[in-house]
């Protein structure tokens, strides 16, 4: 029999239904996996909650016995540590919140709990979501389970991508069947690509942001990482929905995304944006991109070239808007009411001491950039202009979607790199987001599907972008791509 930790959610639900194993057994298998030395060596988990998981698994078994089970009943998952969890430490992977225990549960994690999901613990990420390598946190760096695969980097540990690096590592290493992520500029999709798993960011407004610690409010969305497109569909159906506590969530019915899976893509128009073929692009990424387009074509879809002319501005626009909002969103971590406090002689000194000690260098850098671009005299040149260009980027997509139903692009310019690499060059690091930030700026949904291995043996994913609130088409196309690619490679380390 397949190891319990190797099952997809879909398979596990069938097993639970058929009484092949209990939710407690499923939880125990995962708890044991999380608690191994190797698993802990990945630093994927910031906080393990085995007691919570066992208790939830027991009640899950009881519910199933009574015939009252939920959609995800008994499925062990990991929660990104940006989701506030009632009574469970929630750190935002930051020293400033290292002992913070919320008295409330985020809407998304509440929905997952209500559907019967079992919480294994809270997983690491770049502090507040600031990064693409999961190195910007006192709780990391998180190690990619694919480490050791790349001969050039055999002796070095690889990054899992970020910010949702712990989520990706936990799912890839079979420590959890799924993990929540968040996605502000690619934080769920890029680590999925680096770790060979599926990662999705739904439309802005699809999931409630209530209880998710904010990075950049106009870009933040809950995300999800799993090992199959079908599992992502199951998870998203539970996570999505209107919430009156989040004024930016949208009141639209949530479809049963599973129904969109396996549908024929015949006649579906897949856009391939010419501006995404950037100079100096890794030829392997380019090759896999063409191959993916061909696979979709073979499945009956039509590939059409499209233009997204303002693409080149996306990264600078993102690195103005996101830090601007972050600088304001992080002002609340001042040592006054909760979180770490470092005393000072005056109030200002206390702020300075607390925030200097509590934030990583990257967080401080983004706060400074954000403060600068919002300052009097610079606001018009930076923030206001960036918002205008953002509108143009969105219009590009609206135009493009007149010609196609989904857009196929790479996720990242390359594969997972070694911990320490690019670390001294923030600009190089920011380039990681070049394919992913456009969606966040336009508010559109995107999904990363693992499609193959590069010559270095590391996984690469491709991104599909959909119309706002048209996650269904995305799931149809993604499941076709997944089927055609037949990605089954496993990382060197799994539970």
């Amino acid at each position, binding site marked *: 029999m397949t190891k319990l930790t190797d099952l997809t959610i879909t398979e596990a639900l069938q097993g639970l239904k058929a009484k092949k194993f209990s939710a407690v057994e499923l939880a125990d298998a995962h708890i044991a996996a999380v608690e191994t030395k190797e698993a802990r060596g990945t630093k994927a988990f910031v906080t393990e909650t085995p007691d919570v998981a066992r208790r939830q698994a027991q009640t899950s078994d009881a519910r199933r016995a009574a015939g009252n089970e939920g959609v995800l009943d008994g499925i062990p998952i990991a929660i990104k540590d940006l989701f506030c969890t009632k009574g469970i430490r929630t750190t935002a992977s930051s020293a400033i919140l290292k002992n913070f225990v919320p008295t409330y549960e985020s809407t998304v994690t509440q929905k997952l709990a209500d559907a019967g999901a079992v919480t294994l613990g809270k997983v690491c990420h770049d502090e507040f979501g600031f990064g693409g390598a999961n190195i910007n946190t006192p709780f990391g760096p998180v190690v990619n389970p694919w480490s050791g695969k790349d001969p050039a980097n055999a002796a070095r540990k690889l990054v899992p991508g970020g910010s949702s690096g712990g989520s990706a590592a936990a799912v890839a290493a079979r420590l959890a069947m799924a993990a929540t992520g968040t996605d502000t500029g690619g934080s769920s999709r890029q680590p999925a690509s680096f770790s060979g798993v599926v990662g999705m960011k739904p439309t802005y407004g699809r999931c409630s942001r209530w209880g998710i610690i904010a990075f950049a409010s106009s870009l933040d969305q809950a995300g999800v990482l799993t090992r199959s497109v079908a599992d992502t569909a199951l998870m998203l159906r539970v996570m999505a929905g209107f919430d009156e506590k989040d*004024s930016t969530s949208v009141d639209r019915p949530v479809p049963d995304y599973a129904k969109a899976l396996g549908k024929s893509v015949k006649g579906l128009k897949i856009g391939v944006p010419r501006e995404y073929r950037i100079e100096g692009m890794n030829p392997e990424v380019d090759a896999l991109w063409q191959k993916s387009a061909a696979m979709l074509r073979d499945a009956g879809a039509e590939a059409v070239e499209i233009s997204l002319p303002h693409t080149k501005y996306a990264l600078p626009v993102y690195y103005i808007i996101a830090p601007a909002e972050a600088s*304001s969103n992080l002002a609340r971590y001042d040592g006054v009411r909760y979180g770490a406090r470092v005393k000072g002689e005056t109030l200002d000194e206390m702020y300075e001491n607390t925030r200097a000690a509590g934030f990583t260098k990257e967080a401080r850098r983004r706060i400074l950039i954000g403060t600068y671009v919002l300052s009097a005299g610079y606001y018009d040149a930076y923030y206001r202009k960036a918002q205008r260009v953002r509108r143009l980027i969105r219009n590009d997509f609206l135009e493009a979607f007149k010609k196609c139903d989904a857009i196929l692009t790479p996720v990242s310019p390359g594969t997972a790199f070694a911990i320490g690499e690019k670390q001294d060059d923030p600009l190089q690091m920011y380039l990681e987001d070049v394919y992913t930030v456009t969606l966040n700026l336009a508010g559109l949904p995107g999904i990363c599907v693992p499609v193959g291995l590069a010559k270095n043996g590391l996984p690469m994913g491709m991104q599909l972008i959909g119309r706002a609130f048209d996650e269904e088409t995305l799931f149809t196309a993604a499941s076709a791509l997944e089927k055609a690619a037949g990605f089954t490679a496993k990382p060197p380390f799994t539970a």
Partner: protein
Amino acid sequence: MAYVTGTTGEWEMVIGLEVHAQVISNSKLFSGASTTFGAAPNAQVSTVDAAFPGMLPVLNEYCVEQAVRTGLGLKAQINMTSVFDRKNYFYADLPAGYQISQFTQPIVGKGEILLDLANGETRNVGITRLHLEQDAGKSMHDQSPNETYVDLNRCGVALMEIVSEPDMRSGEEAGAYLKKLRAILRYLGTCDGNMEEGSMRCDVNLSMRRKGDEKLGTRCEIKNVNSIKFVMQAIEYEAQRQVEVLEGGGRIEQETRLWDTGKGVTRSMRSKENAHDYRYFPDPDLLPLKLDPKMVERVKKTLPELPDEKKARFISEYGLKPYDASVLVAEKASADYFEKVAKGRDGKLAANWVTGELFGALNKMGKGIEDSPVSAEALGELVGLISDQTISGRIAKDVFEEMLKSGKSAATIVEEKGLKQVTDTGAIEKAIDEILAKNADKVAEYKSGKDKLFGFFVGQVMKSTGGKANPAMLNDLLKKKLA
């Protein structure tokens, strides 16, 4: 218009006011926490108010309605789309590190307020804008020698910031503006206007220019002056200070000053160089506020009669003088009281009694009209007794004194003390005859031209009748007898 006379000539004050009016609502602007005044510290704080991680603001629709109601009451433009912005600054009683406010697109635009001045004149003051924003908490520096305590009960309560045009030219006008604005807010029920409790707070912007100059001088802002009296005092002080600086060859620096109530002076608080850079930007947690035209219509329809309309009606319906009318409408309670007294009676007489005897008595007792020992119905009865000539106006004053003391009704007092006016011609004639007979010499003097003695005879007859003779009848009969 009042000018400040300096050593080199006359100077004109240019005053604009920013009023922060706390909105009457059960819960806060962006959270469900209660707004009741006087609760134990930090007893009314939600995780949204305290800016806990992951918390999001949700706009309170009732506060929006209150702002619209106020805008309509100020005859102002209602902006169907407005935007909430973040005003960023660090302070211990500002949990999020930003205040949610409205910067470039406020909910209410230009409006106006009509001032009623003491000389009976009126004057228009423009309203620049009204916007909604959150109040901050309170820092308490006096509870511990080396720590500051923070109370977040007030944090997040809705405020309306109402900004006037720089249209006022004296402390008196500023006072009249605040009184009128407060009256309008109270009529509307959108703010209780209690400056002492801090539910209405005022910042003064003041600059000086030479009489006749068009160009505005550099202004100073005086923060948080917490009574109308202090506003007027602060203006007088600040105007003198600025004139002295300017005439001494100095320059006014744009700065924020603080009114020191104890010393009666304004003090520099922070200069323009140290002014905050608030880094305003649209709050990404909130969508632009789009008003429903039906809501605005509904609020418009339920708008109460406001002071200006009421004043006009009192003048036309009751024949009051403009000044009396404006005194009566200044407080809604006074206006309501007056209308009960005046209903079906002589309006002018009712107004005289309310603004004269009643207000005088209440003033002496230090009571407000809500606590008047004489009810509007009781005073109305008294006014009725005067009108139907049961008692004279002079006797009525005694009856009123007795009403204040005993709480008895006017009719009862008149009955018990036998104060009913004498209107029997025969009885009055008899009394006149007696007095004239007793004072034959004075009658002779009167007839030889000493007209002033007429009053003497009236007084004597009144005295002999215990003040009960009907004054008009007495006059008529006396004139005839002396003819």
